[in-house]
């Protein structure tokens, strides 16, 4: 839903809400999914991002997002220098993802201390973003909540186990979606919460035998 500050904002570094603020937020999302500033990043830009990104500061904004600069941080102008100081090395490539892909799509591969994440997302207008794939798994993340994404073998009690853990730590849930992938009878759960997901909860979820894959994603600005 559109809020007043989607109209009277966002306050942002120019020149384009989709190509600059949105690109920055995609960088922030990749960073949030990796749970820290990456040491290395490879970014592939598709469509309009690739075609007009250069003049819109898209590359700079995305690199800035990776090191944690928000869309309204003037240091985005010097994001390359800031990123070098933060110990990030990066490269950009163009990619053709086909007609189906949103014109402002990017794939970000980020690495940090042996951890690696591959994030595919698009800038969908007004600085808003939608991440549609993480590590090859289909997801739907917009960065507006603290989020848990969990792929689990579809068996009874998985949802209860997770929500029980969250309730035990007094984490208030905003939304919850469960999609069964069909293949291997896996279920993808996306849980959005008002509060950060505590380390203890995430660590406990990772020990469940039915867990196939999980990511914790901090809310981004």
């Amino acid at each position, binding site marked *: 839903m559109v809020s007043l500050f989607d109209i009277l904002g966002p306050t942002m570094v120019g020149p384009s809400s989709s190509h600059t603020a949105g690109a920055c937020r995609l960088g922030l999302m990749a960073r949030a999914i990796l749970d820290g500033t990456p040491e290395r990043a490879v970014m592939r830009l598709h469509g309009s991002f690739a075609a007009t990104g250069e003049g819109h500061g898209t590359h*700079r904004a995305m690199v800035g997002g990776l090191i944690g600069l928000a869309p309204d941080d003037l240091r985005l102008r010097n994001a390359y220098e800031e990123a070098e100081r933060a110990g990030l090395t990066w490269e950009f490539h163009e990619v053709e993802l086909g007609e189906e892909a949103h014109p402002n799509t990017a794939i970000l591969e980020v690495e940090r201390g042996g951890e690696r994440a591959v994030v595919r997302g698009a800038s969908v207008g007004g600085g808003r973003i939608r991440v549609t794939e993480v590590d090859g798994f289909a997801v739907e993340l917009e960065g507006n909540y603290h989020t848990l994404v969990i792929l689990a073998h579809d068996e009874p009690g998985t949802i209860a186990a997770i929500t029980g853990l969250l309730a035990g730590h007094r984490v208030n849930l905003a939304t919850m979606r469960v999609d069964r992938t069909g293949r291997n009878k896996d279920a993808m759960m996306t849980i959005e919460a008002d509060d950060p997901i505590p380390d203890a909860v995430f660590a406990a979820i990772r020990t469940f035998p039915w867990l196939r894959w999980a990511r914790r994603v901090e809310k981004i600005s």
Partner: protein
Amino acid sequence: MHRSIESLIRDAEASGRPLPEVVLSTESDESGVAPEQIRARIGRTLAVMRSAIDEGLKGEARSPSGMTGGRARLLWENGSRILGPRVTTTLARAIATLEVNAAMGLIVAAPTAGAAGVLPAVLISVGEFLEVEEDRLIDAMLVAGAVGGVIAHRASLAGAEGGCQAETGTAAAMAAAAVTWIQGGSHEQVATAVALSLQGMLGLICDPIGGLVEIPCIYRNASAAMQAISSAEMALAGLDFPVSADEVIDVMGEVGRRMPAAYRETALGGLATTASAQRLVQLRPTSKPGKPSGISR
């Protein structure tokens, strides 16, 4: 947010509350944020708008493409030859914000970055000329926000979807409603100001040179600011418009949907494909590659 100008006004009349109060309580209910916090955030938003104008009028910032920068200052310094300093000041301020935007400066994308010059130029200039108190400017921002919300719902705010009419047209309608309200316009006059301003922007295409938010955007923001003020003047004088604000908004949406893709922010038509534009795009310096590994082609 409200989904029609009609329902917004109906809510105000049914409750006997002023328009800004209706907008504020709706937003507070929907977001769970206290009204005072919303007002405070709008106050901070106005402060960013002012800083962007001040920075733009200094005229120092240049966009990476080199296409814009310094024009707001030129207008500001040369002053008015025809309608007087209020007009030139408002125009210069609209251009100032867009030049700051193009130079990767801090702006408020209200409703979008490409149309970010209109509302600040109109509100801050009118606020200054008529000595409007800050609280009343915040009220006017609430009215502007509600109008933008209705347009977002019924039509579009994106140039890629509806052309420039969706961006600077919406900004003009928001600003027209805001200043009509500031000057004590009736609900009907606020709605008429929305209808008058937006009908004058119908059909405007989005054809930025080189695909960048620079030319003609800086000038379109300036003319949209004038569109807003002239519509407010006419509405406040009691001139009417036979088509309702909501209907004009719907027409804007319809025109956007029927607009060829070449005129929707693709740089594949209009001014963007003229010989002059193509020469400019070839001449402009390319920005430095993304070190250390560069942008591979």
